């Protein structure tokens, strides 16, 4: 098991280096002139050259990449061009906010979708099954900002059950944050619901067809114990796998939801940095997200391996 994790971590290194080159190339090589892309078309040539010199953008490209990548590894992420603050703490603070939101959303996603999936798997091809499948899939394909504004209207504006903002006023206890995060978390949940519920449904149906379930039923085990002891446990494997593969969508969803709810997370930070051409901030945030994305994929693989004895032994 440890060897499996070690090998996967080692495999991440080349992918990560390539991804960092890609990010760097997209941000600094593609636009040609870094100073020009920051200052825009109305700046004079002297201003552009001055900025390039200050940023070190007049050096050869590989020197700049080495300096940037080296700085990233050692925690020296430079200063934001726009806000004049160090990038590292800003990104970390935003990341923390995003993790609170994403974690809360995941806490909602897993039981809801597994429950829905198992329900429809147990009553396959019934009206309930069809209703659950169609409605969860529709929720998944609709963009999160669309479901977000509709929910915002219904629950915050019309019914007034939940707050319109995503952050409690300063000085509120930490727990009250979750009350404010209910509305932003639901569209994130919708985003994943369709796939995960579908997986849980397929998993349930497969397990139900297994001989050992028939044995369990025939030896007189109560239905509830069959479902909780056998079906639920084994239907979890494909479900967990798909949760891991959906992290990319969750990150994309965070970008959109944080923008919609004006929530100070890393998604909002990236959008703002991109719109203001704040390159140091943008590059650091994107690379950080890439690392987290790969790590969470790895974590999903590990959880699957732990759940599946065949992979666990083979690792």
């Amino acid at each position, binding site marked *: 098991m440890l060897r499996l994790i070690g090998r996967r971590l080692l495999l991440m290194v080349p*992918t990560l280096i390539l991804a960092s080159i890609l990010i760097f190339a997209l*941000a600094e090589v593609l636009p040609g002139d870094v100073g020009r892309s920051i200052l825009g078309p109305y700046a004079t040539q002297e201003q552009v050259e001055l900025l390039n010199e200050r940023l070190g953008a007049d050096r050869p490209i590989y020197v700049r990449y080495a300096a940037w990548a080296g700085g990233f590894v050692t925690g020296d992420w430079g200063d934001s061009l726009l806000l004049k603050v160090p990038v590292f703490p800003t990104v970390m603070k935003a990341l923390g906010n995003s993790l609170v939101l994403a974690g809360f959303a995941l806490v909602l996603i897993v039981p809801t979708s597994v429950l829905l999936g198992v329900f429809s798997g147990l009553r396959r091809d019934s009206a309930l099954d069809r209703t659950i499948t169609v409605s969860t899939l529709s929720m998944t394909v609709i963009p999160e*900002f*669309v479901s977000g504004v509709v929910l915002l*209207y219904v629950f915050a*504006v019309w019914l007034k059950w939940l707050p319109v903002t995503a952050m409690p006023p300063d000085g509120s206890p930490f727990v009250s944050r979750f009350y404010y995060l209910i509305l932003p978390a639901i569209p994130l949940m919708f985003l994943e619901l369709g796939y995960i519920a579908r997986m849980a449904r397929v998993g349930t149906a497969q397990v139900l067809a297994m001989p050992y379930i028939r044995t369990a039923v025939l030896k007189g085990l109560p239905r509830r114990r069959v479902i909780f002891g056998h079906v639920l446990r084994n239907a979890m494997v494909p479900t967990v796998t798909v949760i891991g593969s959906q992290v990319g969508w969750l990150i*994309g969803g965070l970008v959109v939801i944080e923008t919609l709810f004006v929530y100070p997370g890393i998604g909002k930070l990236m959008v703002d940095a991109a*719109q203001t051409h704040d390159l140091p901030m943008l590059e650091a945030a994107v690379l950080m997200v*890439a690392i987290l994305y*790969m790590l969470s994929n790895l974590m999903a693989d590990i959880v699957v391996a732990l759940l599946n004895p065949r992979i666990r032994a083979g690792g």
Partner: protein
Amino acid sequence: MDERNGSLGSDPDLQAEGSQLSSDPEMLELRAEAAAGHEGQEIQADAAAALEQKRQRRYLVKALLRSPTFMVGMVIVVFWIIMGAFSVYFTQSPTAQDALSSLQGPSASHWFGTDDLGRDVFARTMAGARTVLIIAPLATVLALVWGGIIGLVAGFWRGLTDEIIMRLVDVLLALPIIITSILILSLLGKGTAIIIVTIGALFTPVVSRTIRSAVIGEREREYVMAARLRGERSAFVMTREILPNITQPIIVEGTIRLGYAVFTAATLSFLGFGLVPPSSDWGLTIATQRVFLQIAPWTVLFPALALASLVVGVNLITDGLGRVFSK
């Protein structure tokens, strides 16, 4: 339509031929022995195969017309195509401002109310279909063409080429698509053409992966062997022999990507990386009118529902196609 006529006309011939052959087993054996490469035999086999294909295609069209999922999706999407193309000719102007009647609720003169600049929300909602229905299909076509070429080459040649291409694909997929597109669009600027190319390019790796695996499934088949033994060039084998045989996975992949393209295009314009005002694009409208959600919800809700219906419509088509094809 002519497709149907053609195969209907030739059906009896095929049946007659089939019965004649089967009624005479000796003759059949003799023929089979009389060399596989026999000209007439090959042409007959080709014709039979072509007929079989036509019959199958006709069956698919019928099955699609009978699939409620597919038809409901089609009705929704066609409705929005018509609105996107022609609504400006029969609604009020989607851009005409009227400061005196801003943020008014739905009424007889403005069915969906007016927005902050006094523009008619009904006209803007109907016309809003246009941008997304231009961007998404074109981006999908680009992704299919590029991904198709890459997938064909990687799957057909295998070896080192395949290895390199697939590693590159892995790296491109190491970042969530929405992040990469924000990165690209923030640097390249705004505009319809740039969005189309960006979405097309970012969907290319996924498409190439699908097409590659479809090609790998075909390349060991006899007809590919035969073509290579005939000494056909690789490009010919790829485009004329393999490509026609993987149209179904390509169509399914195309409709799946179309759904994602609508999603991505709308999201990008919501985030402010797509179009600029006064475009009546749904994503952009939701982003700019969101501040009025509490006092004038109609400015946001109607474009939101419109976008939701289009996305669901495209996905119903995908679902219907996938089900009919997998039968």
